[in-house]
């Protein structure tokens, strides 16, 4: 069985400070992992994905994530938050004999000026 846990439901940062959104996964297979972002009243957009190539993955808008198998983690980071980063972020796991995507419950990021 596969699952994903987002450790924080809300994260608040000041503009210009680092962002860390935490995600742990569980999978019986070699997983593919994704981060999606959802801005208010918008659809989901792919930020980045890990598919067993490089463990440090760079995405759009300056975000990156590191796959750590020993810790079963795939945390999302950004060195310097921007006001436009305020959104909800979802960590997603996929793998095994089906193509189902399993979503975490989401982390809402607030960015203060």
């Amino acid at each position, binding site marked *: 069985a596969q699952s994903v846990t*987002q450790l924080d*439901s809300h994260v608040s940062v000041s503009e210009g400070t680092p962002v860390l959104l935490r995600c742990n996964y569980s999978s019986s297979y070699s997983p*593919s992992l*994704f981060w*999606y972002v959802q801005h208010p009243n*918008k*659809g*989901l*957009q*792919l930020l980045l*994905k890990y*598919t067993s190539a490089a463990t440090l993955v760079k995405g759009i808008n300056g975000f990156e994530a590191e796959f750590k198998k020993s810790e079963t983690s795939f945390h999302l980071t950004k060195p310097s938050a921007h006001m436009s980063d305020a959104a909800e972020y*979802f960590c997603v796991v*996929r*793998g*095994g*004999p*089906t*193509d*189902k*995507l*399993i*979503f*975490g*419950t*989401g982390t809402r990021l607030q960015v203060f000026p």
Partner: protein
Amino acid sequence: DVKVTQSSRYLVKRTGEKVFLECVQDMDHENMFWYRQDPGLGLRLIYFSYDVKMKEKGDIPEGYSVSREKKERFSLILESASTNQTSMYLCASSSGTRGKNTEAFFGQGTRLTVV
């Protein structure tokens, strides 16, 4: 660009009505998905389809059915709408055969209110 189009952004239906939510993708993707999104619960998979006329139950299929008669179209059906089905519904599609992992592309969502 991949485009996944859901037929309605907002719907209001009465309890007991039969409701159809339509989704069309234009990239010849094999896989299509229906999720519902509720605050604090993330996205939960209702049904998915990996080929025409093929479907599999997701985590919360009760009260829903699906139809995939053509590769590009995946319909979600609420046989008898109830107030607890008030939610945001998201359709997605992805390429690849089963076991090949690629990202999914999402529609804009349909906010359904059942009164």
